[in-house]
């Protein structure tokens, strides 16, 4: 499998125990980051917004990477996100078809960057879910739910099997029909 830019981590943390509160509540978060250090940082960023705790008076109890359970099964992923555009914050729901959740999240980041010019620091993933076929909302994903789907490939990509065999000049024009 190709290596993913964004990995899914489960981060568990709590405030440090104080004389006033011996057993502070433990919070768990699932988030996406490029590496573990960033995952911990993101955890504190979100937790600060929700609870009165900061990295200086808190501790991370666990940090685990979450891997895809069934990476050979095609699934529909629904991603709810909050992003910052040039004019303010907006919520969005996007659907992707992929085999892994990390792949779908990567698709989401690419699509937000291309369609809305939103860079990855400005995107917050609110929720992700595997959506069963009948609950999908977007026509783009629903068109692949046909059991007997078939379509022709209309253009053949004519290229040498590897970059080293590339030549500037060819003897004849390529045949692009499949």
């Amino acid at each position: 499998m190709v290596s993913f830019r964004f990995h899914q981590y489960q981060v568990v943390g709590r405030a440090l125990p104080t004389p006033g509160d011996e057993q502070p509540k433990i919070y768990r978060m699932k988030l996406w980051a490029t590496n573990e250090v960033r995952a911990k940082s993101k955890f504190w960023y979100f937790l600060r917004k929700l609870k009165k705790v900061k990295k200086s008076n808190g501790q991370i109890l666990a940090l685990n990477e979450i891997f895809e359970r069934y990476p050979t099964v095609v699934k529909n992923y629904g991603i709810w996100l909050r992003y910052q555009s040039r004019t303010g914050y907006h919520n969005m729901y996007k659907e992707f078809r992929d085999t892994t959740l990390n792949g779908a999240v990567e698709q989401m980041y690419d699509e937000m960057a291309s369609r809305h010019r939103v860079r990855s620091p400005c995107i917050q993933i609110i929720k992700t879910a595997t959506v069963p076929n009948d609950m999908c909302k977007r026509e783009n994903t629903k068109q692949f739910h046909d059991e007997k789907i078939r379509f022709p490939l209309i253009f053949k990509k004519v290229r040498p099997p590897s970059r080293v065999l590339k030549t500037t000049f060819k003897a004849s024009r390529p045949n692009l029909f499949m």
Partner: protein
Amino acid sequence: MTFKRFVEIGRVALINYGKEYGRLVVIVDIIDQNRALVDAPDMVRCQINFKRLALTDIKIDIPKSPKKKTLIAAMEAADVKNRWEKSSWGRKLIVQKKRASLNDFDRFKVMLAKIKRGGVVKQELAKLKKQAA
């Protein structure tokens, strides 16, 4: 000019780019417009872009995302391997592989065989010319 080879579940395709170059795979599911889930008896099921696939004429009868056992049984039932090796495309690939794997002695033997064949052809041609003259 209609299309005869379709991307569909059960279509046999050849990977023509990348690490898995030259492998015959079966399209087992379609992920989206650009990618398919492919599988072969001796590899882990993985996703691949259509740009890396060359579709063949062979199609087997499988349900969507079958178990490995079902896939292998269906490939045996449709006799994919023999149909491929007998097809002109398959035969050409076998010849290419053979030629690429020749050592110097083999190439010497090929040269002698070519000379012999050329000699036989020239003899026949001379006979025909004599008859025509």
